[in-house]
């Protein structure tokens, strides 16, 4: 009874206090519209919308997959259930990194990890044989893109790109990032970015389509590059729906990038893509007219052919969501992997039987064209559910791979050869 009384008293007292601020900001309740909006009138399904997936038990299987805001506990991580080719090993490198996304490693082995949904950028440092995860930025707007150049960390949010100079010296007392570029739209759909420094010492990034499918404004559905000081912006690729992974070929320096194609057309099309940029500023990759290199959009494709647009290097599966891709330049893996592309497929959501959710290896011909694609890490999908979702990779000095998993909030390390006892 005492407890009740106390609760009630505090309810009355504090409740009154809590209500006060609302009185000032309360808005009038919405009134019903005076006239019925014609656009929203109940009508038979328009012909072009027929064939839409029905509302039944399938629908729950083709909704976006939720990514938890709290990371999984270290003992709940799925490394033991993942499969790799013979001779490769996978271990947990660091855990407790909510929504771990893009990875960058500096010359001293400090690992920088971005996030998308939780607004943070982290650094993983080794100290006295122990790994510590430090949050170096928070409250940012989908800071998915990070890149390093000469000790400066660049961070791409939805509507700005900023930098922290000499970041390694400020991990315990990080300064507020300095904005270098903000001529960017604020749309959240596909507003998160991948960020890379090119061989020309410029920053490369994407601005996705602000929708699943629409005619994008001239500011969207493209790749841009800017100088490291934020000046000299130029559009280098057109018609890209959303790009969340790119890297430069170690020999030809050509930009290769993954591209996610539209949803809600069908279970098995269009195909997501691996692209390369041969003619910067000129190449158009098809969106919103042509998807996957071979499928005209049922709404925007009229009057076009897919031959008007740059063909993908490879089709990498419908809805598979290829994200991070990195050319292998290390020495630890067998020589056959030299200059091969490792690509993380985040895995499908808009498909009743999930596919992707793996890391694949793409081998190229000497002319840079597609040769083959094979699985590298599999097992993230169990009983049509994710037990983890791979996002991005980076190479450690010894040639081992770090791989991020945003579903569990963890970073794994992949090595080749006999494990040390």
């Amino acid at each position: 009874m005492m407890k009740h009384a106390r609760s009630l008293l505090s309810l009355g007292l504090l409740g009154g206090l809590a209500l006060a601020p609302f009185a000032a900001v309360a808005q009038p309740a919405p009134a019903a519209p005076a006239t019925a909006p014609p656009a929203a009138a109940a009508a038979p399904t328009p012909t072009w919308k027929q064939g839409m997936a029905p509302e039944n038990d399938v629908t729950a299987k083709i909704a976006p997959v939720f990514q938890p805001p709290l990371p999984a506990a270290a003992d709940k991580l799925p490394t033991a259930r993942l499969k790799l080719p013979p001779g490769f090993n996978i271990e947990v490198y660091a855990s407790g990194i909510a929504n771990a996304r893009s990875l960058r490693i500096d010359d001293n082995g400090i690992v920088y990890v971005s996030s998308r949904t939780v607004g943070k950028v982290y650094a993983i440092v080794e100290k006295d044989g122990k790994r510590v995860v430090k949050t170096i930025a928070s409250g940012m707007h989908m800071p998915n893109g990070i890149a390093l150049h000469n000790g400066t960390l660049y961070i791409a949010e939805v509507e700005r790109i900023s930098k922290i100079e000499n970041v390694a010296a400020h991990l315990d007392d990080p300064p507020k990032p300095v904005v270098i570029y903000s001529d960017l739209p604020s749309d959240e759909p596909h507003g998160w970015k991948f960020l890379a420094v090119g061989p020309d010492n410029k920053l490369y990034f994407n601005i996705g389509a602000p929708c699943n499918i629409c005619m994008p404004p001239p500011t969207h559905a493209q790749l841009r590059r800017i100088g490291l000081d934020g000046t000299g912006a130029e559009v280098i690729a057109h018609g890209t729906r959303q790009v969340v992974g790119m890297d430069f070929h170690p020999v030809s320096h050509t930009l290769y990038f993954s591209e996610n194609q539209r949803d809600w057309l069908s279970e098995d099309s269009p195909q997501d893509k691996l692209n390369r940029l041969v003619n910067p500023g000129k190449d158009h990759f098809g969106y919103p007219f042509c998807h996957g290199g071979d499928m005209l959009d049922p709404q925007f494709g009229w009057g076009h052919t897919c031959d008007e647009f740059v063909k993908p290097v490879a089709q990498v599966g419908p809805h598979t969501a290829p994200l991070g891709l990195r050319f292998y330049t290390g020495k630890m893996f067998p020589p056959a992997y030299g200059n091969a592309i490792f690509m993380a497929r985040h895995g499908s959501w808009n498909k009743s039987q999930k596919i992707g959710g793996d890391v694949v290896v793409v081998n190229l011909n000497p002319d840079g064209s597609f040769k083959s694609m094979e699985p590298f890490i599999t097992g993230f999908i169990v009983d049509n559910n994710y037990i983890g979702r791979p996002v991005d990779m980076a190479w450690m000095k010894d040639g081992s791979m770090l791989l991020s998993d945003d579903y569990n909030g963890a970073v794994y390390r992949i090595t080749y050869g006999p494990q040390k006892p």
Partner: protein
Amino acid sequence: MAHRSLKRLVWSGIVALFAAIPTAPASAEPPEKLVLCLACHGASGTSELENIPSLGAQRPMYVLTQLFLFREGMRVTQPMNDMAKPLTDDDLREIGDFIAALPKPKPPADTPDPVRMARGQALSREHRCSFCHKADLSGQEAAPHVANQREDYLLQTLRAYKSGARRGYDATMAEALQPLDDAAIVELAYYLSHYR
């Protein structure tokens, strides 16, 4: 004597309060830290206050995620940011589980206009609301229970997602609302709040 009558007065006040304030299910007395929450959001699961959402039967993962966003300053709505600031990760889980056990919000008393309901249902189907929020609009995972949510709160929220004023945890709602105009949003809010 004065002491005793004062005591009686206090108790009668408390009893009156107790009778007036709908309480959480008998099995789950709110933890101390939740009393303040329910003062605005409604201890019965139904909010009586303008623009303050009802939380009854809300999905625990939705509650956890929104409290996380308030705590991290990524969803800005006072006093929620201040209230969420001291919460630990375990608090977020505990509050989510408690909120989920509150009774479902009550539908509004007025009889739904069948024309507007049909219009809202058509919009809901066209834009696949049920794929995440389920056919009965009770939500799943971090997709909230929206059936019988307050109409003013729904309208404010849908408009805020559409304009970008409310940042999403991810961009799902901004993308879903991209093809809808304001007239459609008004109809959807009416339909969801009056759902039977």
